[in-house]
């Protein structure tokens, strides 16, 4: 080491001991990310604008102000000159300068300091502000320890339940991702109602799950995307509560605004378990510690306090026991100590409820949620057995005997008789009526013949026997008939109602358009048609006007009539442009066609809806 004052930053660095260089690389890790070739390279990195800015961002108000004061003075800066600018005692000033020197924002030696050029430029506009001896004070009040632990653990449990409930329900019916990439207002509002919290609170929970990787966008069956829990959610859900909470709380802490958040917790942790009295004082303290943080820093601090309270990191306005453990390697163990242990049993009561007197083992919970509905959550969970919930379990493949066995196994109290009856009654009615798909059926009065077909390897696999004399197939009936005839069988077509379908000789003829003189039909039929016409005319609504192109209103009216099975009066314009009025009883409306019983022809007929020009009710 020479006694001559260093002339450059590189000179200064070159003169430092190995320990001092280690201190520098610790304070500014970017300098050593890839080891510099020599001191010259280290010095030029340390003087580069990005690196200097990074280092400035990490200075608190006292150091930043001191550095700014030094930058404003003509170099080399002496302690005397600095003393006039900085309102602190000599020892403090010396200590601050030493720290700035250690971080290589300042070089030179006692009495002759230089501020690195980039820092000087950045700080030109920064007016020094104090205080220099530490952050502005945060007034505190004492918090009852027991209450504090209690509130902290209560909130931790609550937030976990809310997250599970929220993601569980979004897993069952995932809401669509908006075109803008966000979440639908209505979906969020529904979730808020379900959880009994504000919309803002739900937004927070959703952001939280997203940053913890528990919720993500997933492709929908259709073209779009939906919000759905991730596979990580399943692992998360089955891990112990403490680990679950630590996972989300850590994700929250590491999310955007991390520096400010960490700083907030640091300020709170400096209060030694006491509560702050005024949140604005916390804002001030954080502002002092990270003066160069983003423009919305103060709002972010306020927001952090709100979010931390929702999460249970802060309770009763103080850093909670759970929150204090965050970041520690044994964070989960700390939280674990606060939480109740799991239970694996329920109490079943005669009013068909089952109460789990604590957090349930996931395996038991999942099965219980199959057979019963959750009625209330909290420290305990109240489940209710209903006919619907039991039916759901049956639908999911539980046999009644297994429901009985499961309830018996998890209940510590005797099973009340009404529950046994409920399960048996529901099971008895379950699956009495069955439905399936079929395109064709085979009927034979001789069961043996069907048996033979089922045994035939070319035909059997296409058939499903549903009664001794009936088999159905999902294969179209033309195809099935074809296969059957290839195999040497001769099935005969059947009309609905069981009448044989008669095959006419297949000869094409053109239709005669103009039949000339029509033959008189059955006079009784004609009279019926006339009467029907009369009735239709009498029902013609006064002041009704024809509309073209069957409107939506027309469709709606017809559908309503079809549902209510009520006749309606219609005016119909046929292909030739002839307008008729008739009374019909709609059976169904689909694909632009009305199928209805027509009083005029006394038959079921199809009418093109767009040709129906007027509809009215026909009492």
């Amino acid at each position: 080491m020479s006694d001559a004052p260093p002339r450059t930053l590189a000179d200064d660095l070159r003169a430092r001991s190995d320990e001092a260089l280690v201190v520098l690389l610790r304070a500014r890790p970017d300098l050593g990310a890839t080891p510099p070739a020599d001191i010259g390279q280290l010095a030029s990195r340390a003087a580069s604008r990005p690196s200097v800015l990074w280092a400035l961002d990490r200075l608190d108000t006292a150091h930043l102000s001191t550095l700014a004061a030094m930058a404003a003075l003509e170099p080399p800066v002496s302690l005397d000159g600095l003393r006039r600018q900085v309102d602190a005692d000599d020892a403090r000033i010396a200590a601050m300068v030493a720290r700035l020197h250690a971080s290589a924002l300042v070089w030179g030696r006692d009495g002759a300091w230089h501020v690195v050029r980039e820092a000087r430029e950045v700080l030109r506009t920064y007016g020094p502000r104090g205080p220099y001896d530490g952050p502005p004070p945060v007034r505190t009040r004492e918090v009852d320890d027991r209450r504090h632990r209690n509130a902290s653990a209560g909130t931790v449990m609550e937030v976990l339940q809310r997250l599970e409930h929220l993601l569980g329900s979004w897993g069952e019916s995932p809401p669509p991702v908006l075109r803008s990439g966000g979440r639908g207002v209505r979906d969020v509002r529904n979730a808020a109602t379900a959880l009994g919290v504000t919309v803002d609170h739900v937004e927070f929970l959703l952001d939280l799950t997203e940053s913890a990787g528990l919720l993500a966008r997933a492709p929908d069956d259709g073209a779009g995307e939906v919000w759905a829990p991730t596979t990580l959610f399943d692992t998360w859900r089955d891990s112990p509560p403490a680990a679950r909470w630590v996972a989300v709380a850590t994700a929250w802490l590491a999310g955007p605004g991390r520096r400010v958040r960490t700083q907030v917790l640091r300020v709170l942790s400096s209060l030694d378990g006491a509560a702050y009295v005024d949140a604005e004082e916390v804002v001030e303290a954080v502002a002092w510690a990270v003066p160069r943080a983003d423009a919305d820093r103060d709002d972010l601090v306020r927001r952090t306090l709100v979010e931390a309270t929702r999460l249970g990191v802060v309770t009763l306005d103080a850093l909670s026991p759970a929150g204090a453990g965050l970041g520690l390697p044994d964070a989960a163990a700390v939280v674990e100590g606060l939480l109740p242990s799991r239970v694996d049993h329920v109490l079943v009561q005669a009013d068909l409820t089952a109460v789990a007197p604590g957090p349930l083992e996931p395996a038991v919970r999942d099965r219980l949620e199959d057979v019963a509905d959750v009625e209330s959550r909290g420290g305990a969970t109240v489940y209710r057995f209903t006919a619907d919930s039991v039916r759901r379990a049956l639908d999911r493949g539980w046999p009644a005997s297994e429901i009985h066995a499961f309830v018996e196994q998890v209940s510590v109290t005797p099973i009340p008789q009404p529950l046994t009856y409920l399960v048996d009654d529901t099971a008895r009615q379950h699956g009495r009526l069955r439905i399936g798909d079929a395109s064709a059926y085979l009927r034979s009065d001789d069961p043996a013949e069907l048996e033979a077909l089922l045994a035939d390897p070319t035909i059997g696999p296409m058939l499903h026997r549903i009664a001794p004399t009936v088999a159905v197939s999902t294969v179209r009936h033309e195809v099935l008939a074809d296969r059957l005839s290839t195999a040497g069988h001769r099935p005969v077509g059947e009309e609905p109602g069981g009448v044989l379908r008669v095959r006419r000789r297949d000869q094409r003829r053109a239709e005669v358009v103009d039949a000339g003189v029509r033959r008189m039909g059955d006079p009784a039929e004609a009279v019926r048609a006339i009467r029907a016409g009369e009735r239709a005319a009498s029902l013609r609504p006064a002041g009704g006007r024809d509309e073209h192109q069957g409107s939506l209103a027309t469709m709606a009216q017809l559908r309503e009539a079809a549902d209510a099975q009520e006749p309606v009066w219609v005016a119909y314009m046929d292909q030739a442009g002839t307008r008729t009025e008739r009374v019909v009883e709609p059976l169904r409306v689909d694909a632009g066609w009305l199928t209805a019983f027509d009083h005029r022809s006394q038959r079921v007929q199809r009418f093109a809806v767009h040709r129906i020009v007027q509809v009215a009710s026909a009492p």
Partner: protein
Amino acid sequence: MTDGPLIVQSDKTLLLEVDHEQAAECRRVIAPFAELERSPEHIHTYRITPLGLWNARAAGHDAEQVVDALMDYSRYPVPHALLVDVAETMSRYGRLRLENHPVHGLVLSTTDRPVLEEVVRAKRIQGMLGDRIDDDTVVVHPSERGSLKQALLKVGWPAEDLAGYVDGEAHAISLSDGEWHLRPYQSEAVESFWHGGSGVVVLPCGAGKTIVGAAAMAQASSTTLILVTNTVSARQWKEELLRRTTLTEDEIGEYSGAKKEVRPVTIATYQVMTTRRKGVYPHLELFDARDWGLIIYDEVHLLPAPIFRMTADLQARRRIGLTATLVREDGHEGDVFSLIGPKRYDAPWKDIEAQGYIAPADCVEVRVTLSDSERIVYATAEADVRYRLAASTDRKTDVVERLVEEHRGEPTLVIGQYIDQLDDLAERLGAPLIKGETSVKEREALFAAFRTGEIGLLVVSKVANFSVDLPEASVAIQVSGSFGSRQEEAQRLGRLLRPKGDGRTARFYAVVARDTVDAEFAQHRQRFLAEQGYAYRIVDAADV
């Protein structure tokens, strides 16, 4: 974390484990602020509501006590937000007070100026207020005392009414000497009521609410108006007052459909008070007929809406409400709180039960299966007649006959909804039938005969059941229809089936048709009864 008997849920229900050693102690502590909702065999459910918390405030409990109770007895940590909410809700009561100002008369004053500023600006309240006397006080039109309290409750700032009462016309009443004494809880109830001014006394069925009323009258020693649910109840009140107080026959008047007597003590029915003719209530003037010093509302939870409106104008008179439950089917709990007053006394139910005044009955649901032809008719019937079809199946008659036979010698009631079914049953069983068209006189005669044991079996319709207090029985068989509203059902059941002198349990049979809407309704009923702590069994008709 304690190992307490209480679990606090996020939806503000409290689950109390009945068999826990601290259960009784915990129940006493939470009763002032939480309403008992369900009481099945293992875990009872209480609910914390703003009204419940305000009731507790009115009774002198503070938020600290409530929070402490939750923390002391809770098995698990209580969510912080819930505790904060409790404290905030409770602190809302009493920031506004109705007082009597020496110069200006009735005034609304506050200890928290922003609250007053908020309410004087509220649209529905503005019109009820007069001049501002100073920053913290505003004049109230005396006629709006009740409506103002209702409106303030709706905006979430319930007022404490300290404006006092008129004494009313004095009339000497004292409790009679005799072979009886007020039970300790009864005198406590009267004391709390009198101290609080006006309010509601909650006592379980059979705990002697009428006697509390009589004791309140003796305390007031003034003319009294008693409002009761129906004529028979009016006569029972009269009998009880004659027995328990120094009042004589001609001091007590009945004001009902049949008689219109106005005497120093007048008992009126809700029905006559709410009779409307040409849009007006002709009997409303009864409220002003005398200078009443006390108004008693029996069965407050059934109080009809028009009576509330009338009561709004009676805020200067002392009012006492008597009921077994504050839960109202119509959700008008808030009006009871504002207009009659806060809860002044809630009996420790368990203690009374321990003294043997209330005991659960044995409820049995008997299931019958419809015949195949009935099933076809049922399946093809319109939805609105299905219940009737299922409920009045012939299969039930058979079962009822067997049940009656089994309990021969015990006072038995058969209850139903459909008159043809009941006509048929009465004929088959050879028992008298009471239905809507039966006159009050005939009804009372039959009930009296039933009480003395002269008649052992009565068939009653739902109509009769609605307007009349049924006599005690040890067996009741319901063949169709429910007992009306849910709490009414439990109440009637309780009244119907008092524990018998010889310790024999009372029986309640409900005969229902399997796999029909009848069974569905029964399930609701069954749930409600189970919630009330009644044991419930199901048996097949074949096993009766």
